[in-house]
């Protein structure tokens, strides 16, 4: 029941694996990330979390959200590159996840810029008329049933 270490790597004394070991056999791409790398990333993520909270205490005006998202993006990049292994992954996997963010950003850009530029129109489109009558389904309007 003892945990036997099966790494092929050159440091069998450290059960957590000291370097970028390559696991046994030729049964698929195997880059084994050292535990120290994971630990460093964790510490960085925790620090960035503290920074996020600290930054929220300062008022940057309109840039508040942007700065929060920027810090979050850095954290996300670390998780994706190291924890999710993308740094050592095939090109196509990198392209896949990058594309998802790219196309998502299209949704953001067009939707938000539509809303932001509505005020530029010459008619008062931001004015919403008050609703004073409850809406009725057309089948019930004026019917006798």
């Amino acid at each position, binding site marked *: 029941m003892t945990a036997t270490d099966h790494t092929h790597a050159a440091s069998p004394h450290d059960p957590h694996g000291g370097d970028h070991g390559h696991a046994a056999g030729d049964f698929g791409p195997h880059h084994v990330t050292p535990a120290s790398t994971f630990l460093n990333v964790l510490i960085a993520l925790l620090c960035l979390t503290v920074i996020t909270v600290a930054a929220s205490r300062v008022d940057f005006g309109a840039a508040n959200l942007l700065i929060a998202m920027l810090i979050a993006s850095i954290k996300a990049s670390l998780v994706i590159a190291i924890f999710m292994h993308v740094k050592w992954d095939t090109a196509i996997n990198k392209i896949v996840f990058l594309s*998802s963010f790219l196309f998502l950003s299209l949704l953001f850009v067009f939707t938000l810029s539509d809303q932001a530029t509505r005020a530029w129109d010459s008619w008062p489109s931001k004015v919403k008329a008050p609703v004073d009558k409850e809406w009725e389904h*057309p089948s019930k309007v004026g019917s006798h049933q």
Partner: protein
Amino acid sequence: MTTNLPAIDVHAGLAARRPNYLQVTKGFWSWAATLDHKRIGIMYLIGVSMAFLAGGTFALLIRLHLWDPHGALFTGPNGNVTYNQIFTLHGAFMVFIFIIPAIPASIGNMVLPLMLGAKDVALPRLNLVSFYFWCAGTALALYAILAGGFDTGWTFYAPYSLYTEQAVVSIGMGVFILGFSSIFTGLNFIVTVHKLRAPGLTWFRMPLFVWAIYATAILQVLATPVLGITVLLVALERTYGVGIFDPRLGGDPVLFEHFFWFYSHPAVYIMVLPAFGIISELITVHSRKPLFGYKLIAFSSLAIAIISFLVWGHHMFTSGQSTYAMFAFSFLTFFVAIPTAIKEFSWVATVWKGSIALNAPMLYALAFLIIFAIGGLTGVILGSLNVDIHLHDTYFVVAHFHYVMMGSIALAFFAGLHHWWPKMFGVMYSETAAKVACGLIFVGFNATFIPQFIMGSRGMPRRYATYVPEYEFFHKFSTIGALIIGAGVAVMVGCFVHSLFAGKKAMQNQWGGVTLDWQTPTPPPLENFDTPPVVTHEVYDYTTLDLRTLQTPAS
């Protein structure tokens, strides 16, 4: 799946002593639990064909009702609401249950692994799951009909979809599940194209149908989730009054339209790109000439996929979005015409001086070239912001999208069925009957929708149950055309069904194709190839065609 039988020499046409994929196992569960992409493709084919017939029935009901300016079928105090439900059903069934899955999931499933020289798709169990998701989504849609129906139009715009009858949540969840069916199919095909190509089959030796399905799959994976979240939000809003799309609660119905069309515009390319792929294959085989501009067509599929994400606001020109957004969308919309036109010109250039066989699949393909030109060009007209202000929500729009969705995509689907039928079933249909059906459909189609262009430009609004007498002639003409389409479809279906019971044996290589799908025995064995293929020549190299295979009967 263990066979110890000798490999078949296709060219010598030896009678097969090993079963083909239809014979290898029998019984209900051998189909219901199959992992064979060909069987899954056939199950999808049956499903989407029934959806097409259902959607077509709703269409006939619409057209019969519109025979009379006061409405011929659905009269009485609830007549208009019933009419609304019927056109909603027509749209929802045709878009979500028929067209989006049709070509990729039926023909794509049958043919893609064959074209790649693979034994199956990359994730066969996911393939079966996709099919059952399609079934579940369709079942929910049927339940929604029984639960009271829905009258929102297939676009279920807020705020009406938030207030109207109950069954919106049911159909919404049905659409959600159908969306995941589509996503899983696309995901599967992307992985298959990347990882399961035969040795020697480089990207630029792949048939153009594969490029088309690949581009489609990208759209399925990236765009469909946004539809998923949209229906989820509508369901939440109806159930819990969250207020995101409801203007009374501070929400924004235009935001709904942004979300909806972010998916639904790429969705129309999910529908049409596979059709382009079919036409590419048919044009080259039936002209026995390599496709003009192979790389142009391949890259144009990807270009269309990418540009399709940039233009969705052209469905919303009268909705209340900002003028500047509308400028941007209209400007970007014109760009999508460029790769599309490249395809159309390349196909015509392929046919030019080719050795044209005017058989049924080719007739459908040639009809496509004409009809799609009209459909595509009228799309450019609608993409012009100033013109669209007048044409939006008129029959001009209806005619445009039927020219692309029915006249182009459905026709390409029929063309593909006629083309690969002998491969999949080893039997041929009656060529005469098929041509008659094609003629009826072509004539009927134009008779139905040309009047709609005219009356749309003269102001006839869409989704109206009644109309003023000025449009009566056009509506009646259109209804007669619809009946002719119905007759043509009936002949086509009869022709196919008859072939399954009493059709003549097809040839090993019925049309003289040189892509890998025609190098495998007809019908294919369970694992598609008797010996794993190695590709050594370019994709449409007809000098490699062995004419004996056109004379050798199927096994």
